């Protein structure tokens, strides 16, 4: 708190922040740059730092010559379905956890933590068999259902936190005015916790969009394959050129960046908030 030393500390802080920011964003920027380079500029013995020629070729080729568009659409479908399932089943569960103190509540919450400890591998095998038996293997809905296995608890956990932060008095007032519990939830709590609801949905959406392992195992054909699996397959089996790989990566993280931009307002508000005084 001694102000003399503050200048030196500020400089140090900025130095740290700049180094970290470069560390974090640098690789992504390099990939972005690569996606616009001609293939010959990428596979050279002398690394081209700032290319003189730019091209959209990589994007065009990837989009038109591979099944990338299908992959993206599949991912969108799966993500959307996952979010919808969570919304429908998880919101009311989160509300129940937040507002009611019932027997077994702590156990269920602890149970969530324990579930997280199960290795994904352990779950995939039986899920594979289960989905195959109900005909939902290699199916986008099936994959969405599989995703809820690890995303629904996360959804409920996060949303409960937001519901907890919404003051209970408003619902009490609404119920005195004649609303039902559920009605109070829809009309009062959700609008207040709207930001939290959006943030939670975005988290789940990003996680579903990015997911690799389950998608790898539970989809076998192009009909339902998601982009992470498809892209990696192209790298491994078809030796995808770096430029197109970079383009594919950039395309796929565009939605993530957009979604991230939505959530960051909420997250960064927490970051730039002041600390408590005493």
């Amino acid at each position, binding site marked *: *708190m*001694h*102000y*003399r030393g503050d200048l030196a500390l500020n400089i140090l802080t900025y130095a740290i922040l700049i180094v970290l920011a470069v560390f974090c964003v640098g690789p992504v920027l390099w990939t972005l740059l690569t996606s616009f380079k001609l293939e010959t500029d990428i596979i050279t013995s002398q690394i081209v730092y700032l290319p003189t020629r730019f091209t959209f070729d990589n994007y065009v080729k990837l989009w038109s010559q591979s099944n990338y568009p299908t992959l993206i659409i599949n991912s969108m479908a799966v993500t959307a379905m996952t979010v919808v399932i969570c919304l429908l089943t998880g919101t009311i569960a989160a509300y129940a956890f937040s507002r009611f103190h019932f027997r077994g509540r702590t156990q269920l919450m602890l149970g969530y933590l324990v579930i997280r400890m199960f290795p994904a591998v352990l779950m995939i095998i039986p899920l594979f068999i289960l989905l195959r038996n109900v005909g939902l293997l290699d199916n986008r809905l099936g994959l969405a259902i599989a995703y809820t296995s690890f995303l629904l608890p996360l959804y409920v956990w996060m949303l409960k936190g937001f519901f907890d932060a919404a003051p209970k008095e408003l619902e009490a007032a609404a119920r005195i005015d004649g609303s039902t519990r559920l009605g109070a939830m829809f009309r009062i709590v959700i609008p207040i916790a709207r930001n939290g609801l959006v943030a939670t949905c975005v988290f789940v959406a990003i996680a579903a969009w990015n997911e690799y392992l389950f998608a790898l195992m539970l989809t076998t054909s192009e009909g339902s394959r998601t982009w992470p699996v498809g892209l990696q397959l192209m790298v491994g089996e078809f030796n995808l050129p770096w430029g197109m790989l970079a383009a594919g990566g950039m395309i796929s993280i565009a939605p993530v960046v957009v979604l991230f931009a939505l959530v960051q307002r909420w997250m960064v508000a927490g970051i730039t908030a002041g600390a408590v*005084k*005493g």
Partner: protein
Amino acid sequence: MATLSLNGVRKSFGALEVLSNVDLELDDGGFLVLLGPSGCGKSTLLSIIAGLEPASGGDVMIGERRVNDVHPKDRNIAMVFQSYALYPTMPVERNIGFGLEMRKVAKPERDEAVQRAAQLLQVEHLLARKPGQLSGGQRQRVAMGRAIVRDPDLFLFDEPLSNLDAKLRVEMRTEIKRLHERLKTTIVYVTHDQVEAMTLGTKVAVMKEGIIQQLADPQTIYEKPANTFVAGFIGSPAMNFLSGTLDVEGGTAVLDHAAGRLPLPRLEQDVSAAFGKPVLLGVRPESLHPARDDGPSLSGVVDVVEPTGPDTHVLLDVGGQPVTARLGPRTGLAHGDSIALAVDTSAISLFDPQSGLRL
């Protein structure tokens, strides 16, 4: 030798000036109270004295030494915070001795000092506990123990009683006064509670918007407030202000107000410069008594009667202006009654209505 001396201290945050030209002196053993409403700059001033904030201008002297550039830990001060700021992960013993520990005082001496401080504040039985296990009053004592253990030149208190309930507040207030008398320490105490200021301070600085309105001992501030702000801030129920014009009749000042004329025979101020001009008369509720003779009096109609136990607050309408009087416990008055109240004109103040300053 003055323990604390501020000359022309200023503080601005960017373009906003929060403290303007603060001058004050505090002698050894004195108890200075910085009193004022929220936002008046008293806590900022305390932070500047402590060294937690730099002054934008002026000199801060502690014991004849200019300390503007001295680190808080080298100013030989101690501070008690409104939130107590006890380190939650350390036991009380370590909390109290922390300052000594940071100054590399040897353990045996440290333990002894901690024991003495703990005994003084009656918290020896709590030494092994963590702050989270203590009550509010106990935490308050531990915070004070941490302050006294290093025997500093200057003690700084930042609204230490605000977080306590009313009863505890009164107890701790007495504790602090007792401690001051016993240890003869020099204290700067920030509060917005004027009762604390009056009971604890040897000197009170009433502040508003970064400017000291009046710096004097409590009695002077009470009886001779420097302006209407100070007059209205100190004393509960608040001082009454009656507007009117100042006239003179047979050598005595007279207030010509909406409901009549009020002679002011025992006025102690020299108000000759204000004859014929509008003035504000300040009279405290306790300076009004039921009129028994022909002395100066105000007549009004009773609006509200509030019994408090030991006395009764009566709110009157005097010619359209509200006046509160503090009368005895059984007044027999009710809404709508007319009453005449004698005014103790030796205890009134006259102010200029424009500037608010005492005439």
